[in-house]
């Protein structure tokens, strides 16, 4: 079906709504990569097979990730005139149980996660209550989404459709208000008005730098040269971060619509999505959504009959982390090695093939339709003074609730860790949070009232980055953390400029000395001055921010460095060369658990008599320490 007019859009919307909320039961399986990794495909197949075999009058569909990655596989039941019911950790066995109840018209109570009373598609017409009257029995007592600590502070704007629509179904997207913002922009707004709206809304680039999006668009519109390109950076590569992947897998059309609006504003007719090749599902989802949008006439020539034409090509990433840097990304699209170049002439003036190019991140693009549909003032009300809107974070590390979190800018680190993350495990204590990917910084407990926004993080020595958050507890050694991130960056450095190629290697060598007890106090200053030289001297943002893990840990955890250097001790008991294990003869009750666990046979002893540890054989693996229930294995 070709969509040309507003009536066509309304027809598509009606069709989509009938599919989203059918008058028969619907089973929705979360099938983004996080779901699939937990076994969602088997669950989906099982439901589909059962439905077919038993001639069940209902629908089985897939959807994206709503963020509860630690509860996957997630299954939703959408029953007519009932709240939407979400079930957690639905393995095939659990699915079997759920099926027997749901197909018999009952509501399962096991593995229940939460109910959703009100669906707010945000773009379209406001919240919709999913049932009439009062809830009874189990449902009345069942927790709501907003009762869950993980969900309380969240506000899903960019993720508005993730977990609600089938990403491969363009009608679902239209039914929730999708492509209406594009229609509005093309028919009611001049390109300058679109740029004005994005500028007033205060949207800042979500890829890391936080550059004002509207300002970038305005310079690209003004730039001389033709054709102009609109690019989407989907080359997400931070270890442990996957916001962009989830957005693409859950709601690809939001990104396409954002790019279309951007292209109209800038005056471009050609776009590229540069997507990480190691995201096979995201690549396929994008391919399918581009085809679907083309078929619907929403990509291609003369969109909505307005004379505006725009098409998008997909470019698979070159497999290097640095290709996420704008100039390296453009070189890679051109078929050259992914190496950055100096940006003294901005890419909005001379970017891809030396033409004006506007590059924004996946999440930035997904925010654009919101601003156009709801207005700049609506968007401005969310977030803090300098950072508007919401940001998606991938919260990982030593917290109970691991997953994707979309919150308004400005919430505190404490709320993020303790409330949303559910805190660090009971026996441990929060030590630091690493924000902003490998080149971000570590923020200590003293600063955990810090609001999370672009400027506060920058002042604290971290960066927003793409939004990776790794929570660390007191069993983490900060020297070791700095080593870990440097290893990653050394591996991913393109090698073009000397500060990054050789400077990072030297920093790593100095850290190695620290963790093996060879460092001196003078080396601490040397490390600091080298880190600053690399920060100042490097060519691109990778090298420029690469010293952040070192600089921020030196700033906030200097005592820990000094312990390594002055006392030759690792307080967190991580650096093997600096620690020794011993058995406290008074606490050891001779249970032999450690004797059996030790891979080296370094521990000897008889039952019910204190054991002995032979330090010469010990490889300091810590297995005895972990297995001992009586705290008799001590580390110094």
């Amino acid at each position, binding site marked *: 079906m070709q969509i040309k007019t507003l009536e066509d859009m309304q027809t598509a919307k009606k069709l989509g709504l009938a599919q989203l909320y059918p008058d028969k039961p619907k089973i929705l399986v979360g099938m983004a990569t996080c779901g699939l990794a937990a076994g969602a495909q088997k669950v989906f197949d099982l439901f589909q097979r059962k439905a077919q075999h038993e001639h069940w009058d209902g629908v089985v569909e897939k959807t994206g990730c709503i963020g509860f990655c630690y509860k996957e596989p997630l299954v939703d039941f959408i029953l007519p005139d009932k709240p939407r019911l979400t079930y957690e950790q639905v393995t095939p066995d659990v699915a079997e149980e759920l099926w027997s109840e749901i197909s018999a018209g009952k509501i399962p109570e096991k593995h229940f996660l939460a109910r959703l009373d009100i669906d707010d598609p945000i773009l379209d017409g406001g919240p919709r209550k999913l049932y009439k009257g009062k809830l009874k029995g189990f449902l009345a007592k069942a927790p709501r989404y907003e009762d869950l600590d993980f969900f309380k502070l969240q506000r899903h704007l960019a993720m508005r459709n993730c977990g609600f629509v089938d990403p491969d179904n363009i009608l679902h997207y239209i039914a929730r208000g999708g492509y209406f913002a594009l229609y509005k922009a093309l028919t009611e707004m001049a390109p300058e008005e679109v740029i004005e709206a994005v500028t007033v809304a205060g949207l800042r680039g979500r890829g890391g730098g936080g550059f004002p999006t509207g300002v970038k668009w305005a310079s690209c519109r003004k730039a001389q040269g033709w054709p102009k390109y609109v690019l989407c950076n989907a080359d997400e590569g931070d270890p442990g971060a996957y916001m962009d992947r989830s957005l693409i897998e859950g709601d690809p059309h939001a990104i396409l619509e954002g790019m279309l609006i951007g292209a109209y504003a800038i005056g471009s007719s050609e776009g590229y999505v540069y997507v990480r090749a190691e995201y096979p599902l995201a690549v396929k989802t994008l391919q399918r959504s581009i085809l679907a949008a083309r078929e619907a006439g929403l990509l291609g020539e003369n969109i909505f009959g307005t004379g505006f034409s725009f098409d998008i090509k997909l470019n698979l990433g070159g497999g*290097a982390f*640095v290709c996420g840097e704008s100039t390296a990304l453009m070189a890679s699209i051109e078929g050259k*090695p992914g190496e950055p*170049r*100096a940006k*003294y*002439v901005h890419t909005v003036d001379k970017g891809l093939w030396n033409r004006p190019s506007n590059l924004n991140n996946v999440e930035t693009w997904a925010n654009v339709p919101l601003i156009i549909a709801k207005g700049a003032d609506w968007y401005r009300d969310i977030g803090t003074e300098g950072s508007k809107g919401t940001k998606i974070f991938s919260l990982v590390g030593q917290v109970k609730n691991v997953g994707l979190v979309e919150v308004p800018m400005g919430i505190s680190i404490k709320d993020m860790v303790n409330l949303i993350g559910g805190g660090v495990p009971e026996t441990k204590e929060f030590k630091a949070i690493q924000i902003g990917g490998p080149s971000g910084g570590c923020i200590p407990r003293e600063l955990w009232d810090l609001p999370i926004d672009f400027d506060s993080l920058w002042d604290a020595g971290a960066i927003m980055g793409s939004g990776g958050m790794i929570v660390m507890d007191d069993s983490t050694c900060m020297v070791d953390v700095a080593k870990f991130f440097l290893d990653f960056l*050394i*591996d*991913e*450095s*393109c*090698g*073009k*400029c*000397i*500060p990054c*190629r*050789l*400077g990072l*290697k*030297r920093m790593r*060598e100095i850290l190695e000395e620290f963790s093996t007890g060879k460092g001196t106090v003078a080396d601490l200053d040397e490390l600091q*001055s*080298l880190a*600053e*030289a*690399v920060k*100042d*001297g*490097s*060519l691109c943002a990778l090298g420029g921010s690469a010293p952040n893990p070192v600089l921020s840990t030196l700033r906030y955890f200097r005592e820990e460095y000094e312990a390594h250097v002055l006392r030759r001790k690792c307080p967190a008991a991580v650096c093997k060369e600096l620690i020794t294990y011993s058995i406290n003869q008074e606490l050891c009750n001779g249970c032999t658990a450690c004797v059996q666990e030790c891979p080296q046979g370094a521990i000897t002893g008889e039952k019910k008599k204190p054991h002995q540890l032979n330090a010469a054989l010990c490889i300091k693996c810590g297995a005895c320490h972990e297995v001992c229930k009586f705290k008799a294995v001590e580390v110094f």
Partner: protein
Amino acid sequence: MITFTIDGKEVQGQEDWTVLDVAKWHGIDIPTLCYHPAVEPYGACRLCVVEVDDGRRSRVVISCMYPIREGIKVLTDTPRINNVRRWIVQLLLDESPASPKMQELATKFGVTPSRFKKAGVDFACHLCGLCVRACHEVVGAQALTFGNRGLRKEITSPFHTGSKECLSCGTCLYVCPTGAMEQLFDKVGA
């Protein structure tokens, strides 16, 4: 003509000049390594860094690529700049302690080989890319290229096979600042 200052001294340059062009014209010394007037600047060695205050903020840029703008204030001798330069010379000196070019720079910056210096390598390639650019831009042959990335980055022939494009003209040997090309030459040519 564009007017601005270098170290407080008023200087002028033409529209498409870089800070380094103007500095050279006025006899202001800025050390360089991967720069050569015969080829396009590449920005790899970072030795020619200067601090530029454009009225909004002050930042460290490379003078060989930074286009001059009216009214900017360029500083060539600040603690930040010297820290970057000193470390670059230190890192390169440790890579190839016997290289005459590096020794010359080391003397100038008062740098001596550190405990991390490499043993047994006299003429390490610094990947300044002069050979690649000269082969491409001056000779027009494209017999040389970069291979790999990061610490494994290397000068090689395309696809690591002896290049038929190589004319054995010796331009790469001539421009190589460290002498490393002498050892690479046979591997690269056909």
